[in-house]
Structure formats: C-alpha cells, structure tokens
C-alpha cells in the first residue's frame, strides 16, 4: 500500500513539472494560435540564467524567480517582435517553421556559448525530503508544485481582473471583434507571448533545482508538454494543469506496473484515445465560430 501511495505522490509531483511548462505553451497557442516549438528552449535559457544567477550572486533559484520572470518576459517580447510579429498574419505554417528555426538556433547558441557540459545547481536542500507518514516527498519537486499552483492562480486572476488580461482573452475568442472593442491586437499578442515566455521562465527557474542543465534539456520535455496541452484543451489553463497531473500519474503508475520503457507509449496511447473521443481535450469546449 505504501508503494501505491508513494507512486501517486511521485506522479502528482512530476505532473506539476509537466503542468508548469504546459501553462505557458497553452497560453501562447490559445491566444495566437502559434505552436511554439521553441518553448523547451526558452525553458533551457531560463535554466541557464538561473544557474548563472546562482553561481555569480548566490541567489536561491526560487528567489531568483523574481528576476527571471521579468527577464524572460522581455526576452519573449524581443524575440516576438523580431521574428514572429512580421509574419503573424500570414499562414500558420510560417509561424510554426519560425519557432522550429528558433528552437535550432537557441540550441546551437547555447552549445556554442556554454558547451555541452551538464551543470547542476547544488543547494543545501537538493536531496531533502518532506516526510508524510512513511512517504518521502522531494522538497524541490514540492517547491516546483507550489510555484505551479501560485502561478496558475496568479495568471487566472490576471486574465480575469486586468484590462490586459481581458484583452488577451478577447483576442483569443475573436480577434476582429476585439479590435472593434478597442483592443490593440498587435500589442496584445506581444504581451501574451511575453507572459507565456515569462511563465516558462519561472518553470525553468524552479526546475533547475531538480534537473541537470544542458543545451538540449528543452527536448526532454518537448513531447510530453504538447501531449499535456492538447489533453487539457488548447488554450485552457486549468486544463493544462489537470493534463499535467494526469500525465504525471499515468507516467508513474505505468512505470511501476510495466517495464519503464513503455511509459511514453502508455500516455501517448491514452492521448490518442482522448483525441478520438473528446478532441477538444478534457476541459476544452467546442470553439465558437470566429477566431481569427
């Protein structure tokens, strides 16, 4: 029984990891219909930035989040303005290709600047666990989970209560109608992208306490994040979190019951089933006519 409980806890904690990355991805897709293949690479950049901040300034990664979010936000906006904004109105394939190009660019830039060495941040609590009865919970993963929840709450609050947040939602529902209501769509897209990247930046800062950092670390999370996003419904933030937790659980339990190598096969199979039965995702609704 203990084992099952430990598996569930592990699964949920790992799910938090997937969720935190998926939230930014789903926001970007939901608002701008951009499939951001470079999402993992922004994660990687944030992890490296956190590493250097920790090494040079001695700041704890969770504290560094306060620096990382604005930095990645700005980076997101700059990248968006330079590469995606000019082609945002053209075919979706072009923006997709652009994000693929960015992915390759950032991977090789990191390889060139920082080499392929795997770096780790050592913290006094890197190995600590919180005891819950007989179970051990990894402290760093619990921290990541807490950050995910806090960020999701903050994001939902922002989307509902602020003018920019509401413009973002308006634009994602019907861009033309939003423009008629006085929303500057170009600026809104830019800020939405920046926020999405800021969020994945926060993910990177938190995850730097859990995983090793190297130029291709973004690839590690690639497939799973896309599965989570589609599973939860494209553009649906609570869906991304729920999807993340679900995938984490499936991953953990199947890894115990079946040979570990089958993990990805199991959750991809479930993913196919969901797409066949409920293509808009678990929490997704059928999109109203309009959109672009």
């Amino acid at each position: 029984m203990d084992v099952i409980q430990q598996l569930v806890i592990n699964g949920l904690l790992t799910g938090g990891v997937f969720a935190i990355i998926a939230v930014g991805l789903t926001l970007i897709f939901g608002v701008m219909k951009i499939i951001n293949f470079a999402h993992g690479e922004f994660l990687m950049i944030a992890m490296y930035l956190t590493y250097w901040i920790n090494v040079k300034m001695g700041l704890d990664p969770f504290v560094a989040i306060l620096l990382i979010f604005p930095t990645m936000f700005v980076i997101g906006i700059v990248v968006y303005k330079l590469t995606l904004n000019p082609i945002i109105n053209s075919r979706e394939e072009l923006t997709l290709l652009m994000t693929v190009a960015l992915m390759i660019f950032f991977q090789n830039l990191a390889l060139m600047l920082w080499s392929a060495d795997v770096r780790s941040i050592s913290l006094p609590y890197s190995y600590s666990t919180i005891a819950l009865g007989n179970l051990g919970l990894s402290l760093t993963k619990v921290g990541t989970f807490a950050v995910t929840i806090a960020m999701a709450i903050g994001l939902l609050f922002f989307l509902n209560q602020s003018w920019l947040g509401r413009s973002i939602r308006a634009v994602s529902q019907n861009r033309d109608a939003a423009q008629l209501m006085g929303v500057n769509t170009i600026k809104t897209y830019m800020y939405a992208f920046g926020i999405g990247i800021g969020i994945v930046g926060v993910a990177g800062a938190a995850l730097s306490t859990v995983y090793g950092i190297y130029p291709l670390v973004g690839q590690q999370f690639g497939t799973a994040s896309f599965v989570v996003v589609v599973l939860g419904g494209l553009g649906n933030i609570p869906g991304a979190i729920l999807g993340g937790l679900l995938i984490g659980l499936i991953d953990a339990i199947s890894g115990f019951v079946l040979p570990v190598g089958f993990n990805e096969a199991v959750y991809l199979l479930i993913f196919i089933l969901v797409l066949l039965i409920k293509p808009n995702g678990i929490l997704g609704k059928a999109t109203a006519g309009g959109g672009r």
Partner: protein
Amino acid sequence: MLRLRGSKLNALTLVLLLCFAVVSVVGCGGDQSKTNGDQTKTNGNQKSTGDDVIRIGLLYPLTGSLAKLGQEEQKGALLAAELRNAKGGINGKKIEWVIGDAPDPQAAVTETERLITVEKVDIIQGSYSSGVAYAASAVAEKHKKIYWECGGVADNITQRGFKYLFRFGQTGTSNGETAIKLVEDIVAKELNKDVKSLKIGIIHEDSAFGTSVADGAEKYAKAQGLNVVIREGYSMNTKDLSSLILKLKKANVDILVPTTYVADGLLLFKQMKELNYNPLAVVMGGNAIQDFKLAMGDEVNGLMHADITMPRTNYDYCPGLEEFNKEWMKKYNQEPYCAHPIRTFAGANVLFDVIEQAGSTDPDKIAEVARSLDLPYGSTATGWGVKFAPEGDPMMGTNLRAQAFGCIWHDGNIETLWPEEAAWPGVKTKLPWVR
C-alpha cells in the same frame, strides 16, 4: 520591402533574421577551430601534395548533443599526432588530420563521403558514438577505405564482416562483463558474502550503448549462475526514474548495475537518495566522468565503473599513459574529463605503427598489416593488446585483446582497481557504499 499579405518585412528585420541564420550555422560548425589546435590550416581546403604528409580523416561529433565527449575523444587523437610528429612523424612524413564533424549518423554518412571522395583520404579514424560508427564505416567499406574505430562500443558495429573496418576499443559486452566481474571479484569478497546470494539489478538507457552493455552484463551474470532479479531499460530523456527506483527497492536489489548517460545518471543518484534506496554497491556500466563528482561531491567515493582505462592506471601496465597524462596536463592545465581520449590516443598510435609498417596508406596493405598484429595485454597506453578478429569470425575486425577495466572513486579521484595488474597503487574500496 516585401509584403506578405498585409504584413511588412522591413530591411531591419531581414538583417536580424539573417544574423540569426548565420549564428545558427556558425553554432553548428562552431567548435572546430577550437579543437583543431595545431591543425587549423588543414581544415580540408588544402589538398596535400602527398609526398611530405600523411593525411588521415578524423571524424567525431564536434557539435550537437554528443559534442562534449566527441570533442574529448578528438583531442586524444590530436595529441597523439602532435607527439608522433615531434618525434619525426611516420617514416619521416608528418601526420595531418583531415577533420570531419558528425553530430549524428546522417551527417556521418555525408561527411565520410566527403572525406573519401573530395579530400581523398584512405583512412578515417572515429567516432565516439556507436550510431555514427555504424553508419560511417558502412560508407568507408563501400569505397574500400579503412575505418579505424576507437570509440563506438556497440557489438553490432563489427558484426557485418567488413574487411576494412577495425575496432580498437572494447565492446559494450565487455563493459557489462567487467561490471559483473567486479561484483564477483571485488564486491562479494569485500562484503564477505556468497556472490550467488546477492540480488542484482541491471538498468540501462535504452539506446545501442546502454542495451549492449546490459545485454553483456545479463548474459555473463546468468552464465555464472548469479541472481539477476531486475533487468530494465528506460529512455535517456526520462524526466523521472522514481517508479523504477521503487521497483528496485521493492525487489530488495543489493547490487545495482546502471548504464546511463550523464543527465539520467545524475537524476538516478538524486532520486535514489530522495527515495532512500541504498543498495550495497553500485557498479556503473561506463561513463566514469567528472560530472558525477561535481554533482555529488564527497559522496561519490565508493562508486564503481566498468569503463575505459582511466588516467590513474598502473603505468607499468600501460606504456605511454604516463606521457599522455603529462602532455594533457601541459596542454589543458587540468585532468581529463573522462578516459575517452586515452582510448583514441592509444588507438591512433597503433594506427600510426600500422601505417609505418605498411609503408603506405593503401587500404589493402593497412588491412593486411593490422590483421597480422599480435600484441599481448600491456602493450598500449590503455593496457590492452592488439589482435583483430580474423576473417570468418562473427566479430571480424574487433580487437580481441581490449576489455573494460574496473575503476572506483577514491578520495575524489577515479582509480583503476581491476584487473589486479592494472590497479593504481593505493586504491581502496568503500563497501557498502553508504551516502
């Protein structure tokens, strides 16, 4: 200005996009000039006159995900040529490497074609990665050119009956077997237990490398009547190994034999500690590298590996190793990150000797001389001998006198402890491995 359905691509954006593109391309070919060292002029654009130099292709992953160890291996070969040239070269001619970059098997194919058809080399040394080796050697064989493999360990590289392929290094099977031999000869003895009573768990990343090592370990262990309770592969990109660790815990695995790459290896040790899984000993099937020490600090002491000959191996058993260590320290001001360059260094030296004996780089002559070599263990800088499996042997071309040695972290340094003749003086075990 270009117009794309309502949007404008102005000149500035175009220039910036071009810069991105340039950096991407440069990033792909970026590190070549750094690792070329003295050979910067020989980057393939000059065709030699043929009379005063011996041109040999050098194919490694210098960019991409395998770049780190690919570059380290390349450095070993570069050093070997430097030292040999300082001693007069081969039959009075200087050795000149013709550099190729093979970040993956697809690139390996095109680069090998280029080295052979454009650069016109007769011999290519490579490759660190088994995938690259497998692909590149097939191209070389097609052209009837020598492929001198010093790195790839996958058994299947030399299971194709290739006439012009020679693998100097050990196989993955050897890594696996040595790991189990360490359990038999060292771990069981020190723990004062009957080796057959110990529960062994073999886990591995599931690409060609990890699988071949695990296969070798499992096969040998079962042949010796040992108790292998778990054998499982996982993806090296995994984000979480806790389910696997819980399985190992539940089965009460005493001795863990993991074969990992770097990131997953670090994840494994981290999660083992979090989940409080402490086997009596851990014997890794390879990858004895500094990253583990950097991540684990003093706790790394006692961790064992079955791997290539380490810098701290008995110098009497490994002629040339002491010189390698000295020259490497002079050049790079730090110890090698891993043992891989020692293998390429030793392999390159054997190649130079073969070219010297053959009197030319003609592939048929080289193959003949190489196959005639019969050097016992203790003849090269890796402590290995040289005897390539002959025609008709299912593993034709592999070095029958190469095997993984056992090493252990002791006082923060990796030291060889098995076989006994190769042991570093003063090496000590730490069993059980308590963290």
